[in-house]
């Protein structure tokens, strides 16, 4: 097994283990801990085992093909620098696991904790081992997500939720920026492969897109490493359990930002833009963090701000973009991880033992927990940069770099002074941590007596502190080789000489360290009383709370502005939406038309006054109907029918008998439908308030009218233009020529409907069926408005009349009313059915067909309803509309399927003629069967709609504010009744 495949293993195994951890029982603390420890040990072992292959610039890579089309393959790649990070991640990870085992309460649901923890470890390893920059972004965002889950682990605490969300929002934003930055770099370089990118530094720096790419990459790095101005999220992430803080916020996740800076240091550093942005951000963070840390009252808060400041130190070093500065940065990354992790753990132990992290309540703990105290003191000494500890060495290097002469006088002054001041501050807060917690009188405000934690819980700290000492005293034989390997992989083979020795003689850096230490001690004394007063927050910028600002901004933009914009750009009312729809359609039509509609010819067909008269009437009907539609619905409905009639006449006129027939029949049924519906609409009395019309309303009317007129003109123009132009060679002739020969019918339109384009008809009848079902479903839940439930006036009068007469019972008059027409209509029933049959059979050759016949048939039914009333009809003939619909569809479908048996496609027809007495020679085309299906469905659908609507008049109101009507109402129809 190639050693490179182990690279995949150390990334993959944590994720697998994470899934495993998630499904373990809640109580399995030890199992969880063992599992996680095993994963960490494995990772550590592999890392150490791989060491020989990454020394002096060696690179080990493994590639898996994923989406080669997009240049995105999974590439795992390790070099000296990545190796150092692997060591940190797995090593510190192992210690944190051990620590967490004792830290987490037995009542905590640890499976969730360790599952997230392992997933995070995997993501972090993925970041440092990615050999493809897009893949790097993927793991980068994964660390954001998993850390979000870890911070929000105690999600019942409000500050955990807020902290988690803030961390995700800030780092997520950075991640998106990073993605875009990486895509730009990929665009510049022409590949997403890290090795290719690292090989083309000059190309990147010289490219016009360098600045945007840089800004976006920095956005990612600075947010992740909590650098100014994004530093505010980290302190609120302290709501996480302490092991998480010890791992994520000291050793690993926040280091991902500086990792990125180092990773891209060779190809992006060295320009002015880089220097100014990165150094400025770093130096600001360095001093700001240190300053705020002094005045923290929460131990973890203090450590968080010190972390921010130390990351600022690293960033500053990278900003200077000199090789030696890079060396110092890498060195400090490792050192900071060791002492800060141990300090977080110590803080956790104190919290664990005393129940609080508030410095104001803590003091004199030395006598209770001497070991822990000692360890914490050594670690904080390292943090303060005391000689003989690792912190001192990297800080010395930092001072050395800042003290170098630089062209720019401002930089010359700012850097060293800033560095020294920050050093002083770090001494102050380290002193405060040690002195405030471990010395002084015994604590009074504690609810329990603190004592040493279990030895194993302390073990991780001991190991880390030991490392601090070893690196601090004998760097040459401890860290040097590993550091060298890391440095070479970043700075390149020609790395300038650097010395890790503790003593460099008396020089400026030493002086700066001395000033920082002494000055810091004095400053602490000066501030002592102020600090003991225990005032929250630092002076001067106390009221500048990053969190509050962030949340205010977030709410303002993501809520208040969004709401306003949505109101501005959208609407929930129908009229504006329809107006927009029409407007856009008009625009879409007129842009090309204005571009060129071509010449308009005169009308080919001769003018005929009679036709003009027809449409004079039609237009009059339309306009009056429009005018009356609001106040006189019945008038409008009748005139609407008038316009429809003129349409029919037009069809007859221009040789379209089928259309005329169909249009006429549909006209009738539609009118009946709307008539049935009218009763349920509210009464509207005409009121003349034209003068009282508001300006807004008047404007709206003018606008709508203009829109309507423009639309009308457009339609007129387009239709005229087409109608006056000769038709090109269309597909129409084919149908005329083959209708009889191949379709077996002389009525071409009907043949098209049932044969050439029968599939359209199949869909069309499906629509009709669906609508019928929908109408039925909707009307079953129909609830008339309270003001339209009472019986129509005429009925009331007639019933009143009956009630007065002793010899009549209520309702008689209604039954006698229209008696003669009723009888006639009942007699008409068979006649109409025969008519329907006739229209159906001749359809294939003459105007007519299944649809027309179906409508006629349903008219026959509805006439019976009109004549005899709902009850009377349903007592006599039981129509099952839904069955009609279903059978119609199936018949049509099966007819179409028939052709399969003969190996032809769906709906291939066969036909021959047959003599039928009295009717004559009718085509027995399979299309006829299909048309029969159409007929059935149309009957079923139309009748279902009509009946469902008609039934409403006999149903009782569901809710009615009035007293129930005196007349006994009939029960609403059950679905079975309709069916």
């Amino acid at each position, binding site marked *: 097994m190639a050693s490179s495949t182990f690279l995949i293993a150390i990334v993959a195994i944590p994720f697998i283990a994470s899934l495993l951890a998630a499904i373990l029982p809640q109580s399995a603390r030890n199992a969880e801990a063992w599992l996680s420890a095993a994963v960490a040990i494995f990772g550590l072992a592999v890392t150490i085992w791989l060491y020989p292959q990454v020394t002096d610039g060696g690179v080990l890579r493994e590639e898996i093909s994923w989406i080669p089309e997009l240049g995105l393959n999974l590439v795992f790649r390790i070099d000296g620098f990545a190796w150092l990070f692997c060591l940190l991640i797995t090593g510190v990870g192992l210690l944190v696991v051990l620590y967490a085992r004792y830290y987490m309460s037995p009542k905590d649901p640890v499976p969730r904790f360790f599952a997230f923890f392992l997933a995070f470890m995997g993501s972090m390893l993925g970041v440092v081992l990615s050999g493809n920059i897009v893949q790097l972004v993927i793991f980068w965002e994964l660390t954001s997500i998993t850390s979000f889950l870890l911070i929000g682990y105690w999600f019942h605490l409000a500050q955990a939720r807020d902290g988690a969300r803030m961390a995700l929002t800030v780092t997520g934003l950075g991640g998106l920026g990073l993605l875009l930055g990486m895509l730009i770099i990929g665009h510049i370089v022409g590949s997403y492969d890290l090795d290719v990118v690292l090989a083309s530094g000059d190309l990147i720096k010289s490219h016009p897109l360098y600045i945007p790419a840089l800004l976006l990459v920095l956005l990612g790095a600075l947010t992740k490493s909590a650098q100014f101005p994004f530093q505010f999220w980290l302190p609120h992430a302290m709501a996480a359990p302490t092991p998480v803080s010890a791992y994520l916020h000291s050793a690993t996740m926040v280091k991902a930002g500086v990792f990125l800076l180092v990773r891209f240091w060779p190809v992006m550093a060295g320009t002015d833009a880089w220097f100014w942005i990165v150094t400025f951000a770093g130096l600001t963070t360095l001093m700001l963090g240190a300053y705020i840390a002094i005045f923290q009252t929460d131990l973890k808060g203090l450590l968080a701000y010190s972390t921010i400041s130390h990351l600022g130190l690293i960033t500053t070093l990278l900003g200077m973009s000199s090789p030696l500065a890079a060396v110092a940065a890498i060195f400090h990354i490792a050192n900071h991880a060791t002492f800060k992790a141990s300090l977080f753990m110590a803080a956790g132990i104190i919290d664990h033992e005393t129940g609080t992290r508030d410095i104001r309540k803590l003091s004199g703990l030395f006598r209770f927990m001497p070991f822990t105290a000692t360890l914490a003191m050594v670690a904080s000494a390292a943090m303060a940069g005391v000689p003989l500890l690792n912190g001192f060495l990297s800080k010395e290097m930092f001072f050395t770099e800042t003290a170098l002469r630089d062209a720019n006088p401002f930089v010359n002054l700012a850097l060293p002074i800033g560095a020294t001041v920050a050093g002083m501050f770090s001494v102050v807060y380290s002193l405060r941590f040690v002195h405030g917690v471990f010395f002084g009188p015994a604590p009074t405000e504690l609810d329990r007596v603190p004592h040493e934690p279990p030895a194993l819980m302390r073990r991780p700290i001991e190991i880390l502190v030991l490392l601090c000492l070893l690196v601090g005293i004998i760097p040459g034989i401890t860290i040097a080789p590993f550091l060298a390997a890391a440095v070479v992989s970043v700075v390149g083979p020609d790395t300038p000489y650097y010395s890790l020795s503790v003593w460099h003689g008396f020089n400026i850096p030493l002086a700066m360290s001395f000033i920082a230490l002494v000055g810091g001690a004095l400053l602490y004394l000066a501030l002592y009383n102020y600090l003991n007063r225990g005032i929250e927050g630092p002076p001067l910028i106390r009221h500048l709370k990053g969190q509050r600002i962030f949340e205010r901004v977030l709410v303002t933009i993501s809520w208040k502005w969004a709401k306003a914009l949505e109101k501005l750009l959208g609407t*929930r*009312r*129908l*009229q504006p939406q329809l107006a927009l729809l*029409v407007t856009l359609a008009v625009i879409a039509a007129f842009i090309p038309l204005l571009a060129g509609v071509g010449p308009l010819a005169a009308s*080919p*067909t001769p*003018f005929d006054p009679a*036709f*003009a008269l027809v449409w004079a009437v039609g*237009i009059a009907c*339309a306009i009056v*109907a*429009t005018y009356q539609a*609001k106040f006189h619905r019945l008038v409008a409905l009748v005139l609407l029918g008038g316009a*429809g009639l003129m*349409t029919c006449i*037009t069809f007859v006129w221009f*040789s*379209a*008998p089928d*259309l005329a027939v*169909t249009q006429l029949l*549909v006209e009738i*049924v539609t009118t009946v*439908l709307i008539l049935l*519906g009218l009763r*349920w*609409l*509210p009464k509207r009395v005409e009121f003349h308030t034209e003068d009282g019309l508001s300006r807004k309303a008047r404007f709206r009317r003018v606008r*709508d*009218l203009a*829109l*309507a*007129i423009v*639309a*009308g*003109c457009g*339609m007129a123009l387009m*239709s005229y233009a087409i*109608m006056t132009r000769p*038709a090109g060679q269309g*597909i129409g002739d084919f*149908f*005329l020529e083959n209708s*009889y020969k191949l379709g077996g019918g002389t009525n*071409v339109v009907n043949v098209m409907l049932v044969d*050439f384009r029968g599939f*359209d008809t199949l869909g069309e009848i499906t629509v*009709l069926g669906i*609508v019928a079902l929908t*109408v039925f479903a909707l*009307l079953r839940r*129909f609830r008339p*408005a*309270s003001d339209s439930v009472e019986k129509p006036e005429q009925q009331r009068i007639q019933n009143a009349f009956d009630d007065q007469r002793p010899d009549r019972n209520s309702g008689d008059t209604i039954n006698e009313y229209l008696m003669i027409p009723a009888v006639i209509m009942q007699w008409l029933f068979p006649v109409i059915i025969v008519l329907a049959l006739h229209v159906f059979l001749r359809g294939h*050759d003459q*105007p007519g067909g299944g*649809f027309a016949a179906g409508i006629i048939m349903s008219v026959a039914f509805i006439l019976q309803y009109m004549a005899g009333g709902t009850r009377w009809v349903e007592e006599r003939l039981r129509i099952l509309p839904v069955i009609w619909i279903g059978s119609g569809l199936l018949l049509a479908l099966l007819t179409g399927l028939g052709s399969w048996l003969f190996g032809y496609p769906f709906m291939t027809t066969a036909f021959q003629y047959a003599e039928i007495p009295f009717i004559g020679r009718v085509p027995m085309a399979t299309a006829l069967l299909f048309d029969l299906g159409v007929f059935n469905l149309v009957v079923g659908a139309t009748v279902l709609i009509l009946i469902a*609507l008609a039934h409403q008049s006999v149903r009782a109101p569901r809710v009615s504010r009035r007293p129930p009507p005196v007349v006994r109402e009939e029960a609403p129809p059950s679905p079975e009744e309709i069916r």
Partner: protein
Amino acid sequence: MELILAIAIGVLTTCGVWLLLRPRTFQVIVGLSLISYAVNLFIFGMGRLRIDAAPVVEGGVIDPANYTDPVPQALVLTAIVIGFAMTALFLVVLLAARGFTGTDHVDGRER
């Protein structure tokens, strides 16, 4: 003749659109019906206007020049049927809306 029909289509569309933009559901349904007339005539017109050329052929050899284009007629037939179905549906929905909201305003509440 084409001019007359074109004007007719235009007027029907104008009335239809105007009603479509009105606030009362009944106005909207009348508007939709008018628009569907206009659209049907429009489609029909796409086959050009012919008098006494109904696409009902006799057997034997056929000269397409003697007949009007049947395709638009087939399309219009389908359009009529679907239009009928949709009108019915919309009618019932507006009745239901009126029942639920108590008003016949398209937004379900008077403004």
